[in-house]
């Protein structure tokens, strides 16, 4: 008799698993737990906050205020996140996520497995690779890594040269200067024509005047210091045989060279694709941001029904929009698992959806203004390293292309480019764009690597020990049912943050 079949209880499974505890992941968890969902949040860092609010509640700096008001604001959301009932599993690398709701991660030398009915990927962004001659040499780092060292360990480098373009670059230079660290030079690669072309989006910029003013403030701060600023630089090359000796570049035809052992490069951020690609989600090439992004609807739902993507891993949106997106994704998934109605979700998401639409205008302006130079994304020098793990140069790739490696996976099999431990993070976009150029076809037709788990290295011993993880407590839904007004009140409180 069909009536005798028990309803699946999902007692050993989570309702929602969230990967990443940055602004998007944390706000998704807060929203979902308020509605009574069993939520688990997995994050690779010891503390919640993500990259942007890294260590905000445990800064090694005497005066964390030098990192800026935007950073300090993060402590509000991390506090709210700690108060919510989500299980937070920190310092773990999720190395596999499946569209069947399976998550595998390493914890204390073992592989833990859990299942969730819905998954929110909120793995954030990474810095866009900067494949110029010498970028692989010791002494060259990304500016973001310099900031990580600053935020987590209070470490800085005196006399470094910062080079590239984008708001994060100026922010980090300003943070260095506020700490009294000497910055040898800022080599700005934002080209003149970007200032002109971004003017068509100026109305968008004006839609978020606060952001604009913040940006101008940073530039003023840098100009007022004695840091030498070079504008409109191009043709960047790091010189040196075994280590960085200097940075050379040209400005309207005249050559410059700055002697330094430390170069911090940055030309914007792109979504961290490893998880969304390994999940097999559909991706499209975003011409505005020059990166691959997972296809999502307004609610962050991906091409796979049970998986949503929130925050910068869905395309670069910034911290505030990421938080809004986290809430929106959570609301949709609460509908999917039947904890709230569609009407409730529509109602509660309205303000966030409006906010995000508005932010998109501003984003178009930023993306236009800080669009990185073609020559710094698509290396032409034969000796430039594209794949750092396997040390494959432009020349190696050209040879692979000539032998039939016309699409990223064939080229990978042919040359080993992208086969190393970073799983193609550092070369994937470069390869897509180079192949598009060589084939004279749109990047969208070239595609990206087919990725596989593990998304992070996992030891054989960790893999060999397999444990299932189930929710700590089963939520009593009857008593935690949330009324409309409760949710509304909570919502306002959140927005106020």
């Amino acid at each position, binding site marked *: 008799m069909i009536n005798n079949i028990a309803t699946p209880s999902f007692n050993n499974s989570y309702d929602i698993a969230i990967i990443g505890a940055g602004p998007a992941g944390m706000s998704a968890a807060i929203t979902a737990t308020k509605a009574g969902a069993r939520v688990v949040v997995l994050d690779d860092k010891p503390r919640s906050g993500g990259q942007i609010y890294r260590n905000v509640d445990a800064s090694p700096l005497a005066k964390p205020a030098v990192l800026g008001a935007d950073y300090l604001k993060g402590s509000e959301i991390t506090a709210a996140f700690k108060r919510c009932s989500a299980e937070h599993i920190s310092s773990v690398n999720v190395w*596999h996520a*499946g569209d069947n709701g*399976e998550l*595998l991660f390493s914890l204390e030398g073992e*592989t833990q*497995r859990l299942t969730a009915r819905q998954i929110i990927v909120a793995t954030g962004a990474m810095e866009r690779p900067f494949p110029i001659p010498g970028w692989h040499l010791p002494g060259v780092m990304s500016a973001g890594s310099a900031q990580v060292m600053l935020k987590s360990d209070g470490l800085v480098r005196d006399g470094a040269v910062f080079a590239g373009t984008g708001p994060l670059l100026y922010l980090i230079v300003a943070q260095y200067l506020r700490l009294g660290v000497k910055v040898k030079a800022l080599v700005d690669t934002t080209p003149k024509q970007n200032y002109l072309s971004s003017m068509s989006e100026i109305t968008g910029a004006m839609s978020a005047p606060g952001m604009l003013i913040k940006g101008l403030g940073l530039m003023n701060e840098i100009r007022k210091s004695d840091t030498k600023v070079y504008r409109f630089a191009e043709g960047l090359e790091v010189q040196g045989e075994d280590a960085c000796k200097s940075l050379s570049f040209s400005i309207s035809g005249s050559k410059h060279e700055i002697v330094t052992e430390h170069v911090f490069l940055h030309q914007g951020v792109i979504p961290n694709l490893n998880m969304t690609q390994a999940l*097999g989600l559909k991706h499209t090439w975003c011409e505005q941001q020059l990166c691959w992004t997972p296809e999502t609807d307004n609610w962050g739902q991906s091409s796979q029904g049970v998986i949503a993507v929130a925050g910068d891993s869905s395309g670069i949106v910034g911290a505030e929009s990421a938080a809004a997106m986290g809430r929106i994704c959570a609301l949709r998934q609460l509908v999917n698992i039947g904890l709230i109605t569609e009407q409730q979700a529509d109602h509660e998401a309205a303000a966030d959806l409006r906010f995000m639409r508005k932010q998109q205008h501003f984003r178009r302006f930023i993306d236009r203004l800080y669009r990185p130079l073609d020559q710094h994304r698509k290396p032409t020098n034969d000796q430039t390293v594209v794949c750092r793990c396997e040390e494959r140069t432009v020349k190696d790739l050209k040879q692979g292309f000539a*032998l*039939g490696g016309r*699409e990223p996976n*064939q080229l990978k*099999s*042919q040359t080993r480019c992208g*086969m*190393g*431990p970073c*799983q193609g993070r550092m070369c994937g976009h470069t390869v897509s764009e180079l192949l598009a150029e060589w084939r004279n076809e749109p990047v969208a037709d070239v595609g990206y690597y087919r990725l*596989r*788990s*593990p998304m992070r*290295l*996992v*030891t*054989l*011993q960790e*893999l*060999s*020990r*397999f444990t299932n993880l189930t929710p700590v407590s089963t939520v009593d839904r009857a008593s935690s049912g949330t009324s409309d007004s409760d949710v509304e009140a909570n919502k306002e409180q959140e927005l106020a943050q």
Partner: protein
Amino acid sequence: MTTHKSEVLVIGGGIQGSSTAYHLAKRGVSVRVLEKDTVSRHASGVNAGGVRLLGRNLAEVELSKTAMERWQQLDDELDADTGFRARSLINIAADETDMETLRSREQQMHELGYFHEVMLDQHELRERLPHVAQHCIGGVVSEQDGYAIPFHSTQAFRIAAERIGAIFCEGEQVQSIRKVGDSWLVATETQKYQAEHLVNCAGAWADLISVMIGDNVPMSYSAPMLMITARMPHFATPVVGAVSRPLSFKQFENGTVLIGGGAKGFADRANNTTRLDYSLLASGAHHAIEFFPIMKTACINRMWSGLEAYMPDNLPVIGKSIRADKAYHAFAFSAHGFQLGPVIGEVLADLITEGESRFDLEPFRVNRYERKVL
């Protein structure tokens, strides 16, 4: 619409199809290969690369021995780098039962006049594999065995074949096959092809092609799983297997270790994809550590699987079609066809140009599972 004509049409651009095209082109036969995705996209490009004569089913030994001779000079013949390295292959005996299995196999092989499998005692095993676990008491070695890089090997056949006139058409999925008069007429979504001879090397999709030709076959398909580590210090020169445990690995020159063992994931051939079974991979990891404790800290860099075809007896289908004239099969190599690639092309070229092969193909006939109706 023009019909593309050739003497032979090969369906499937894996190592068997590419090798067949090469051997036919070498004899001056016009040949065209239809590949539904890209050449060596599936099992031929992503397998473990084992070039193994050791432990072959008796029906396959002659083919495998000839293939092994070809491998020793394949790079020169194809003017390419297949990555082939003769490193020997050792199957480890973990207990007395394993040793007994090896002794009776040795006796059988000697009676048939085969002496390429040589037993090792514990001391000899440890000399060749210093890091093997204490409990391993012996093994068997085949000296000529080794590995090659599958993608490069398959591409090497393709490029060599193209150089002498073979044509490869990628992205051409066969939709229909008809025999009209003396000609095979094959249609893909946008193209029509005509040939006198038709060869089915369609791997995990070969049963579908076989049915279109007229031969029913109880083929299945699956997704054998592999994983590879990041570089680690050199610790094993031979390729390693085990007599009765699902263990198989090889350390490449760059230090990475490829671990197989036959555990299978889930195959979804309609969508060209596979799904891995991580709990099975976990037990594979367990076996690797049990036999080689040094691998405890090895870091797994990638895990994957390819779509592979199997017959119930784990032997391939090789030979002429039963139902149709001038049609030939070579598929369902059941996860050990890569090594045979160089010789299979010769066999099919012989069947097409000479009408027969010097090898006994009886155990591989396509209708070996057909029963008489009572």
